[in-house]
């Protein structure tokens, strides 16, 4: 048991109403070292025989404490207990954060029931609910180069990836534009680096990731497929800590600590890639043939303050920038210039406050954006001097911009067996895309295009969660989304969960959801499977989705098993004109969308077992997804009928940890070659046929065949070296250890050999075996 020094009254003191003589202790219980909040920890005052449980964010409040000196003890499963002495002021609130050191404890069975005071945004009190990715899963999932939040999420059964290259989430048959990604509740757009190879969220700052894949409660919206909330941890309130990593591609560093006066905390992290710097140096030294003028950087800032009445105010800022800058290397031969910059930004403020034991209010204001600008130019030629001048002729300009301003508020209160909630969520979106070819050559290759839209939405919601009898909860609610000329959606939301036995919970949920924005990308283009960035616009009418989900969850403490079955139908889905050739047509369709529909159904299984420092997690998905446009139906190319994801990890030695991830899945749909032909064309000038000299492939039903099965094994090894000043964690990860050439696409090529009848198929490979290493630290 640790015994921390006396906590002084210098900690935050806040005035209390004059009639209240008793004081209160408020704070957060965190893990020593990582600073991660600990939910469901017990905070007790043994002298007063009082105890409370911490909420999801590790927060707790103990009220009604007489002024004086009291022992405060914190305990949690798998951690050493911690004890402090608190001086509680008369009628005031003492801020006291407690830190527990991890210590795995094998237990036969532990039933823990928490009483969250500030539920996570995606919490579903009566329904299948979200799947939560804990920091442990993020730590042990092998990834490319460095730990990656979005990549780790792909291990969940509801979430699929279109390829190794893209970390964009495809949830239950929906494309990435149908899933809302939020950072502490703030919308994020395209939080990726290098086209989606990496996600642009600092893994050290992440506390948990919740994924809710449809059949949302009334408080959640407004997308039709899924919601993913990345919650970041608060900074520590006792001292300054630092985390960071040095990898092959980038370096990141984070610091957190208490705000002045220990009223609240701060957390700041930043990351930058150095491929551009390294490749430029190598190119200058003649080590490589060219440099790689690309760089990314991201930063995250979070401030938290306790507010009056046990409330809390949190401010979050997020920045993600990338760029490519291609400049001529000499003035004799080189004349191409290209500048490209893009990225996303977000800021938000969240405030919540309990109004007594049964009431709570919260409010959020946020602004989020994604934008990019592309410029291609050519240097002006000085023909006399046979060289290029510094002056530029711009040949192409293009840009994309999305702004989302959000204002939301809600209240929750309890009345008898009913927990009631109501709120609003208003957004104002602006969408801008343009392509301006400026040279004669580019005008023939690109059409001038400009899209400038504003869409405002207001969602009002109300919900009642009724504890009908012990173990049985029923929720009923409604969400109304008004989007002006784009329509209004009335969305009933129903759910129920029943604890059939202490270990088994059955649940069901159904409801309608709607969204105003849609992707301008053609999801069936191969390029859309490689590049994660989305270009968004407002749909002519609200896209509407109906969900039904049935779930069962079983646990005995160490082992958890969850099975969900779902049905989904999406209407008024804007789809680009259907193309048979996934290589030929443009990735971005600025216009000419046609309303289509989508259906998805499937079964998902998630099982996990933990024992000591070892664990195993198995996810299996059986999924069917269809899209329809007029009378044409097809399977979208991102669908995998069967997918299995197995993760396992174990500790070794003192501070060592090895993990693996094995993924196997059906091949993605593609259009097979079923024959060969030669085409003759009519020549109107002669009235006869012409051509016919080339063998061409004839394609079968669209996406009617599947590529070879996907198989990948990733391995990770890490070891902690603890020193007095901190901890170093070198790691080695190998993606696709077996170097299996998983196939991204199969492309038929014209064969101009007159003597051969047939088609050459080229296969697009995904990741080869890629070993990466680096070192993390914390102190």
């Amino acid at each position: 048991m640790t015994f921390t020094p006396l906590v002084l009254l210098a900690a935050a003191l806040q005035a209390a109403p004059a009639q209240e003589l008793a004081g209160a202790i408020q704070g957060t219980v965190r893990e020593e070292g990582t600073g991660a909040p600990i939910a469901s920890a017990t905070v007790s005052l043994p002298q007063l025989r009082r105890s409370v449980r911490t909420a999801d964010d590790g927060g707790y409040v103990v009220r009604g404490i007489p002024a004086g000196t009291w022992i405060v003890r914190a305990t949690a499963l798998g951690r050493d207990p911690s004890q402090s002495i608190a001086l509680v002021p008369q009628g005031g609130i003492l801020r006291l954060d407690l830190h527990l050191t991890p210590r795995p404890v094998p237990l036969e069975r532990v039933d823990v029931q928490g009483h969250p005071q500030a539920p996570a945004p995606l919490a579903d009190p009566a329904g299948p609910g979200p799947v939560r990715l804990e920091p442990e899963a993020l730590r042990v999932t092998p990834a490319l180069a460095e730990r990656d939040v979005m990549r780790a999420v792909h291990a969940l059964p509801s979430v699929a990836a279109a390829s190794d290259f893209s970390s964009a989430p495809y949830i239950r048959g929906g494309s990435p534009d149908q899933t809302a990604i939020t950072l502490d509740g703030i919308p994020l757009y395209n939080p990726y680096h290098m086209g989606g190879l990496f996600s642009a969220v600092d893994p050290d700052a992440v506390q948990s990731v919740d994924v809710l894949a449809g059949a949302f409660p009334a408080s959640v919206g407004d997308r039709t497929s899924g919601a993913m909330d990345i919650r970041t941890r608060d900074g520590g309130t006792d001292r300054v800590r630092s985390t960071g990593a040095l990898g092959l591609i980038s370096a990141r560093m984070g610091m957190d600590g208490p705000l002045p006066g220990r009223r609240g905390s701060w957390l700041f992290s930043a990351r930058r890639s150095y491929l551009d710097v390294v490749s430029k140096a190598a190119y200058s030294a003649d080590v490589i043939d060219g440099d790689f003028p690309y760089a990314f950087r991201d930063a995250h800032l979070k401030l938290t303050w306790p507010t009056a009445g046990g409330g809390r105010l949190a401010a979050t800022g997020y920045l993600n920038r990338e760029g490519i800058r291609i400049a001529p290397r000499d003035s004799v031969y080189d004349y191409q210039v290209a500048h490209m910059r893009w990225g996303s930004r977000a800021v938000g403020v969240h405030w919540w406050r309990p109004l007594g034991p049964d009431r709570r209010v919260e409010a959020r204001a946020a602004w989020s954006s994604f934008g990019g600008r592309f410029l291609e130019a050519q240097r002006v030629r000085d023909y006399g001097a046979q060289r290029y001048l510094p002056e530029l002729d711009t040949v192409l300009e293009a840009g994309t911009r999305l702004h989302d301003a959000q204002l939301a508020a809600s209240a929750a209160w309890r009345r008898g067996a009913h927990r009631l909630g109501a709120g609003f969520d208003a957004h104002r979106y602006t969408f801008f895309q343009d392509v301006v070819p400026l040279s004669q050559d580019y005008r023939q290759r690109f059409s001038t295009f400009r899209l400038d839209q504003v869409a405002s939405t207001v969602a009002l919601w109300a919900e009642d969660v009724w504890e009908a009898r012990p173990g049985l909860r029923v929720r009923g609610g409604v969400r109304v989304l008004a989007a002006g000329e784009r329509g209004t959606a009335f969305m009933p939301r129903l759910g129920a969960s029943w604890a059939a036995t202490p270990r088994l919970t059955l649940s069901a949920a159904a409801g309608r959801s709607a969204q105003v924005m849609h992707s301008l990308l053609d999801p069936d283009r191969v390029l859309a499977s490689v590049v994660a960035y989305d270009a968004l616009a407002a749909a002519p009418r609200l896209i509407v989705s109906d969900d039904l989900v049935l779930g069962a969850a079983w646990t005995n403490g160490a082992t958890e098993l969850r099975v969900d079955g779902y049905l989904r139908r999406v209407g008024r889905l804007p789809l680009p004109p259907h193309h048979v050739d996934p290589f030929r047509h443009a990735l971005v369709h600025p216009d000419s969308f046609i309303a289509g529909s989508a259906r998805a159904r499937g079964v998902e299984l998630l099982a996990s077992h933990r024992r000591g420092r070892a664990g195993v997690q198995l996810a299996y998905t059986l999924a069917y997804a269809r899209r329809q446009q007029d009378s044409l139906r097809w399977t979208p190319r991102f669908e995998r009928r069967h997918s299995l994801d197995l993760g396992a990890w174990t500790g070794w030695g003192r501070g060592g940890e090895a993990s693996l991830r094995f993924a196997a899945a059906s091949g993605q749909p593609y259009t097979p070659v079923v024959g060969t032909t030669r085409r003759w064309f009519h020549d109107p000038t002669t009235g006869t046929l012409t051509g016919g000299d080339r063998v061409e492939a004839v394609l079968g039903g669209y996406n009617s065949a599947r590529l070879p099965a996907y198989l990948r094994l990733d391995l990770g090894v890490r070891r902690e070296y603890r020193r007095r000043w901190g901890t170093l964690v070198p790691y080695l990860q190998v993606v696709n250890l077996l170097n299996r050439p998983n196939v991204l696409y199969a492309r038929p090529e014209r064969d101009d050999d007159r003597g051969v009848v047939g088609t050459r198929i080229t296969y697009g490979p995904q990741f080869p075996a890629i070993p990466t290493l680096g070192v993390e630290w914390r102190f």
Partner: protein
Amino acid sequence: MALLNPSRAAAALALALVAGCGDLVRPSDFVEGDPDQLLVHAVLQAGSDSAAVLLSRADAGRLIHGAQVRLLGSAGQAMLREVEGLEPCTLYYVVVDGQREPQGVCYAGAVPGGVRAGAAYRLEVELPTGERASGHTVVPSPPAVQGVADGVRVAAREETGVLVALEPLPLKWTAPPRVGVRAWSSRSWPAIPDARCSALLYRLESDSLVVIYGTDMEVDSARVVPVAGQCYVGEQERTRVDPDSAEVAIGITAYDSAYIAYTAEWDKGIPETTARAGLQGAYGVFGSAATTVRRVRLVPQGP
């Protein structure tokens, strides 16, 4: 739990993976086609008194002789006979080692009453091998063309033997629904029938001239600039320009929807439904066309 023994789990997984890695994907593959795949190509032309059908196979060297080819219309039935050479079907040929290599066999013959706009025709093909193919088309009406009178003389400037109209011509047309329209041009030299001349047709778009390569015209009017290109007599280029030599035909051709779908551009393979346009039992196309021509004579202006 036995599975959580790391060494056992790793061994089991390694065994499973080694067993599953037998079918590693190669970077490219060759899918053999059926060299005997039957191909049928025919485009009926409104106003013509004959029809021609090209029968071939995916392996162009495998020729189809002795086929029964029938064209059935409301005015009667035409039996199309195998002809020497390919000329009724195509002027295009492939030369290998100095020899013309046949690309198929042409079946041609007179059509009772001629090919009439608005009429429906059925094609039936039966091979000695028992293979059968059939097709159906409804011949479109020729587009009505306004804006350019037939035989009009147009002032042009001469640039290295090429004549370019000085002013764009306001070409307008109307075509029946569900047909595709293509604009084209050709140059003839009536005084020298053997001359092979080229012509180009440009479309004026804002301030740019865009050449029309016979692609679909989704509009019903265009400001066009006819250009009379070089002529050859034998292998000899004839660059002398005189008004008699510079007759350019501006054609507007309407095609039935099957043919338009068939000619869509595909880079990486043709959908099966498109590869057999207007046909059953064979790849190819059975379509029809109707053309309206306006002849303009480009007259060189002095410097």
